[in-house]
């Protein structure tokens, strides 16, 4: 997608050149049985000052895509082609060693799920924060603690108590917030949150979303949220992208994508989502199963096996992107619909 030059809005969101530019990214898992495609030819832009959401079922490739922004794909995954460019740092996928470690942490902060115990159970939280800082060359412990305290206060937590706690003494919601502190400790300006509210109850989820909103605004970050829960994306994000079987099938401003979904998968997702509004009789479960890596169609549209609108043409060629007013989607059939 070409760079856009929109004027700055009143809130100060600058949407000039994207802060993170993913171009034609393709990642596959190399196994003795052949390559299993995890991410295919993905183009995505993340803009400074905007929260972007990435929605997809398990196995859609969204976590792999997020990890590739850090060049941290676990083996046997491998980047086949494509690039991930940061505003200032060049192609992350070409970096190794010290240069790569610098990007991870100081440029990009990654927050794991609360349920993944990514905190060391044997060390207190404060000590781990210091470890993170020191491993990136920050020697000033006082400064690190001060920053940590400020962040924890912003999140409505008792900083003293949290810093001296062990991981198991904190609730899920608190661990998630600590995860965000870790990611922002080194003043990164890109923040990636992987399923930040899965395994949290409704109130904790609302609190975490509020915190992300606040932190994002105060620090003018570029934020990416990954979730299988469209309601979280729909509430929090300015832009959203929908992934299926390793491809971005629809992307655009959230309000536009939700109000006028153009890809059959997005439409199916919205009809299949339990909601507090809307007629429950109209809800339809998604037919079929989420694709597994070995059964993704290699030719034609990846969604075709589950698509109600599929035509014979969908079996042969992959649909190209159609762009309508900053709203991008990949479907032959719906592209022909009159607006």
């Amino acid at each position, binding site marked *: 997608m070409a760079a856009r030059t929109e004027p700055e809005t009143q809130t100060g969101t600058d949407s000039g050149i994207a802060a993170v530019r993913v171009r034609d990214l393709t990642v596959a898992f190399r196994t003795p049985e052949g390559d299993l495609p995890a991410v295919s030819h993905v183009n995505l832009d993340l803009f400074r000052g905007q929260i972007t959401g990435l929605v997809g079922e398990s196995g859609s490739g969204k976590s792999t895509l997020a990890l590739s922004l850090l060049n941290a794909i676990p083996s046997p995954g491998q980047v086949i082609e494509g690039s991930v460019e940061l505003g200032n740092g060049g192609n992350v996928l070409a970096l190794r060693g010290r240069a790569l470690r610098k990007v991870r942490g100081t440029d990009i902060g990654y927050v794991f799920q609360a349920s993944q115990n990514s905190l060391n159970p044997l060390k207190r939280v404060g000590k781990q924060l210091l470890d993170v800082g020191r491993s990136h060359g920050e020697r000033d412990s006082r400064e690190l603690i001060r920053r940590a305290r400020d962040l924890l206060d912003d999140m409505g937590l008792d900083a003293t108590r949290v810093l001296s706690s062990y991981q198991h003494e904190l609730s899920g919601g608190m661990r998630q917030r600590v995860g965000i502190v870790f990611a922002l400790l080194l003043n990164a300006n890109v923040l990636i949150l992987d399923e930040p509210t899965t395994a949290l109850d409704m109130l904790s989820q609302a609190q975490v*979303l509020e915190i992300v909103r606040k932190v994002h605004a105060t620090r003018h970050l570029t934020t990416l949220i990954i979730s299988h829960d469209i309601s979280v994306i729909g509430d929090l994000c300015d832009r959203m992208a929908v992934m299926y079987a390793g491809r971005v099938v629809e992307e655009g401003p959230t*309000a536009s994508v939700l109000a006028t979904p153009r890809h059959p998968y997005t439409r199916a997702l919205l009809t299949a989502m339990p909601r507090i509004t809307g007629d429950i009789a109209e809800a339809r479960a*998604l037919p079929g199963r989420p694709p597994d890596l070995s059964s993704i169609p290699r030719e034609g549209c990846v969604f075709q096996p589950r698509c109600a609108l599929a035509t014979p043409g969908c079996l042969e060629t992959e649909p190209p992107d159609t762009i309508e007013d900053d709203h991008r989607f990949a479907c032959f059939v719906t592209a022909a619909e009159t607006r």
Partner: protein
Amino acid sequence: MITGQGITRTFPGRGSMLRREPVRALRGVDFTIPDHGAVSFIGESGCGKTTLGRILCGFEEFDGGDLIIDGQSMKALSAKDRAPYFRRIQMIHQDPYSALNPTRTIRQILSDPLELRARQTGAATGWVSDRRAELLGLVGLDPDYVLPRYPHMLSGGMRQRVVIARALTVDPQVLVADEAVSMIDVSLRLGILQLLQDLRSKLGVSLLFITHDVATARYLGADGELYVIYRGSVVEQGGTDTIIQHPAHPYTQCLLSAIPVLRGIEQPGKDRLIPLAPLDERSQPPGCLFAPRCPQAAEDCTAAVPELALSGDAVQGSVTHKHACLHPQTRSVVATATA
């Protein structure tokens, strides 16, 4: 029909030998699960709803009050005599993975209870495999695909369906779904919810749905009942739709405010309550337990625990709307569809 009267449960606390404070998980809960009914328990994590579900299935003892199953008081029976009653109530766990034995195939998992049944009822040979196929068909699974596999070879949604099929092997009257869809992708939840609703209409089982996600409670079928539980007490109860549209208790209003709002297709309720600080399980406030976090707490709220009383709304069919707030305020908190 199942009735709970004043169910109380206190756990001996954790902590050092010197300062072990007991945790009052349930403080006198009354509820009724009518035949063919659909009841939901809503609340944050730690509110006691899971404990209540486990007590109903016989996995947990209750310290006070009584549980009456089909007219028989459980308090009056010995543990051994209770077993046949509790067998009529089957649990669908939250984690479909840990609910299935990883070392056994689905065929074996389903055959175990069926063979026991066959021996007890003197069924003909072949009954077991017929019934097995029948149950798998009821839950929407293909027996040829599923039977030879181990649990880890199936997706989360499929596993949950196997768990439901297993629960049905003993012809239960009540299915207790404890966060049964929380660990499944949002796009697949509707399938399970509709399955439960189907079973309710086809087989006449009652459903007890324990969840923190109010939106899912809507999908269990018409005339569902909702109980809102806060720290071991029921603070509001009534018809699902009534409570969602006209919540009386401020805690219910907070829970409903926390539901994410989809941009472009929904608008937030105009009186949405701000998310609160995390719950402090150790605090023991006098009077109303919610008072410390309540936006409208008054003097008399800390004097005594408010009773659960009929609200101003009239009786609706067989369901009455009750709440336990001395100073309820009407607030419009739930999102509404954008016209």
